[in-house]
C-alpha cells in the first residue's frame, strides 16, 4: 500500500509555547490508525495544523499522496483530499447544510446532478435528511453534529480523513453508530486518522495501528495490545514503562486569594 499521509519531524508552537515536538507519522491508504493520548498532548493541534488553521508556528513537513501540504491554503488541502471531522463543529447561522455541501461538492469537481444525488443518498444513510435544509450545525445535539461531520465526509470522499474525537460527548449508541459509519467508509483509497483519548471506540471499530502521543511526541505504536495496556494502566503506566518523566509546567501565578484559602484559620 502506498503512503497516504506522511508527517515528518513536525514541531509546532503557539505563542512560543511548544506543542508538538518532532512528531512523525506514516499512514498508508486503506488503513485506519488511531492516535491516543492524554488531554493536552497535542492531538487536536496536530489535526488543525494538518488542516491549515492559521496561527501556528510550524516546522517540519507533511504530505498527502506525495503532495506537500504546508505550502497550501486550507481549501487547497481539502481539495487535495484532506478533510477533518471537527471536535467542535462550528454553527453557521443561515447557511443551509444542503447548500454548503452543494458548493463544496462542486469545488471537489462534482457536477450539480451528481452532487445532488450523492447528498440525497448519503443523507438517507446517515439520517441527515431533516437537517439538510437547516443551518449548518445549528441546534444539533453532540451526536447529531458528529454524524453531520461524517455525512459531510461521505459526500466529499476525502483521501485522508482526520477524525478529531469523533467519540467524545456521545452516548454508547451514538458511538456505535459513528463507528459503523467510519467502518463503512473504509476503502483502499482512504486513510483514516482517528484521534481519541478513550479506548472505548476501539471496541466497535477495528484499527490497523495505534499510536500514543505524549507531550507532543509520538512515544509508542502498536496493535490492539497497546489499547489494552492503556485500558488497564492508563497513560501513567505507559509513562513508567517508557521512562517518560512528567514535565511539570509552570503553574499559573498564585493569586492572593490562594494564600487566604491555605491559611489555617481553624488552628
Amino acid at each position: 500500500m502506498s503512503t497516504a499521509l506522511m508527517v515528518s519531524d513536525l514541531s509546532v508552537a503557539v505563542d512560543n509555547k511548544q506543542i508538538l515536538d518532532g512528531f512523525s507519522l506514516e499512514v498508508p491508504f486503506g488503513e485506519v490508525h488511531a492516535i491516543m493520548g492524554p488531554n493536552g498532548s497535542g492531538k487536536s493541534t496536530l489535526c488543525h495544523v494538518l488542516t491549515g488553521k492559521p496561527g501556528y508556528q510550524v516546522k517540519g513537513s507533511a504530505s498527502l499522496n506525495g503532495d506537500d501540504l504546508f505550502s497550501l491554503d486550507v481549501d487547497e488541502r481539502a481539495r487535495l483530499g484532506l478533510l477533518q471531522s471537527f471536535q467542535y463543529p462550528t454553527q453557521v447561522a443561515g447557511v443551509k447544510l444542503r447548500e454548503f455541501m452543494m458548493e463544496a461538492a462542486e469545488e471537489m469537481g462534482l457536477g450539480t446532478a451528481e452532487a445532488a444525488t450523492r447528498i440525497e443518498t448519503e443523507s438517507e444513510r446517515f439520517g441527515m435528511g431533516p437537517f439538510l435544509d437547516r443551518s449548518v450545525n445549528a441546534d444539533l445535539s453532540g451526536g447529531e453534529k458528529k454524524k453531520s461531520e461524517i455525512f459531510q465526509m461521505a459526500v466529499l470522499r476525502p483521501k485522508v480523513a482526520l477524525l478529531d474525537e469523533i467519540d467524545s460527548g456521545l452516548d454508547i449508541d451514538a458511538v456505535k453508530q459513528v463507528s459503523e459509519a467510519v467502518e463503512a467508509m473504509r476503502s483502499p483509497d482512504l486513510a483514516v486518522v482517528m484521534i481519541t483519548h478513550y479506548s472505548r471506540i476501539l471496541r466497535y471499530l477495528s484499527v490497523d495501528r495505534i499510536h500514543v502521543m505524549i507531550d507532543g511526541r509520538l512515544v509508542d505504536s502498536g496493535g490492539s495490545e497497546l489499547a489494552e495496556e492503556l485500558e488497564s494502566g492508563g497513560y501513567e503506566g505507559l509513562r513508567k514503562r517508557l521512562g517518560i518523566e512528567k514535565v511539570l509546567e509552570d503553574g499559573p501565578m498564585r493569586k492572593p486569594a490562594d494564600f487566604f484559602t491555605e491559611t489555617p484559620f481553624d488552628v
Partner: protein
Amino acid sequence: MTAFDAADHANSKSNVPSWRAAQMDSALAVFEALDEPTGVEEDWRYVDYDLPFAGLAQIEDPGEPLSDGPFLASLADNSGRVLIVDGQVVDVSSVSVSVSTLRDLESHEREFSVVAVDHNKLAAAHGAFANDAVFVDVAANQLMDSPLVIEVQGVTPNAASFPHISVTVAENSEAQVLVVYRSADGVELLMVPEIDIQVADGGRLRFLAVQSLDHAATNVVHQRMTLGRDATGRLGEVGLGAKLGRLDLGVSLEGDGASSEIVGLYFGEGAQTLDYRMLINHSGRNTSSDVFLKGAVEDDAQSVFTGLLRIEKDARRTSTFETNRNLVLSENGKAHSVPNLEILCDDVICGHASSVGPLEEDHLYYIQSRGLSKERAERLLIKGFFQEVIDRLPIEGLEAPVSEEVFRRFAQAQKEGRVV
C-alpha cells in the same frame, strides 16, 4: 416650484382641504423656528446631515415616473397599486381596499402628523408642506391575501418631497402593505415620508418597506405603528439605497396582548449612511415584541442602530427582545449599535443582543476546510448572514430580488478588492 419660506407657503397649501391648511399654517411657525440637524443632537449622533432647505424646492408638477424596477416583478399578486411621485399621488389603480387621497377628504378632518411637528426640522417641514397623502382603510373583518403596493418615487433634482401614507387596519382584519422607495439615477433630492399605521383590536398587519433609492438621494422616514388589543404588527425594513437613509420608527403596544415583530436588513456601500432609530413602547399587558436587524457595511459606509425597548409601569408580563448584528467588511466601514432597555415594571422578560465585527475567522476556517475558496466561503457566509432575515420578511415574493441585490453588492466589492 415652491421655496420653503412663508411667502411661498400659500402656494403649497392652495389645493388642500381647509382642515389640512390650518394644520400646515401652525406647523410653518415651528418649521421656521427650528434649525436643521447638525449631528450634535443625541438623536442625530453619527449622522452628517447637510441638506439645507434653502437649496431645495417643493414640486407641484411631479416628474415622469420611473420605469419598473427589480422588486415588484417577482411579486406574484397584489391588491392594487398606488404611485406617489415627488410627493404627489399620481395614480391609484385596481385597488381592492379603500384608498383615499387628501383631496377626497374635504370634510373629513384626520390626524395627520405621525410625530410632533417640533420633533425635528424635517418633521416640521412635513407638517408644514405635505399637501398630498394616501389613506388606506382596511375594513373590519376584511382579509387581504396579497399586498397593496405603494411605490414612492423621487425624480426631480433638488426637490424636497413629503410622501404621506396612513394605514388603518380595522378590527379583526388582515392587511398587507408593501412600500418601495426609488429615485432617479444620480438625482440629488430629499424625501421626508411619514407613515402612520393603526391596527385596531384583533387586527393583523404585514408591512414591508424596501428602500432602494439612488445613492444621491436622502431619505428621512418617520414611521409610527400603534397596536390595539390582541393586534399584531409585523414590519420588515430593507435598507439598500440613499446617501443618507434614516428610519425613525416608533411602535406602541397599547392594547393588552398586542404583539409586534420588526425584522430588517441593510447593506451600505460607498459613502452611504443607513440610520435606524427605534422606540418600542409597551404599555398594554401581556404584550410581546421582537426586533431583529442585521446589516453590513463596506467601503466608507456607516450604519447606526439605536433601539430602545421601553416597558411602562403597568405593562405586566411583557416579553421583548432586540437583536442587532453588524458585519464590517472594510477598514473604513463603521457600524454603531446601541441597544437600550428602559424597564419600569418588574414582571417582564426582556433582553438584547448586539454585535459589530468582521466575518468570523472560525466560520471561514470551517467552510474553507470543506474545499471552498476564501472568496466563495465569504460569499456563502454573507448570504447566510442575511438569509436569517430574508426568511422572516413579512411579505412573500421579494426574497429573491433582495437576496440577489445584497449578494451582487458583496460579490462586486470582492471582485474589485474592496473587502478586507
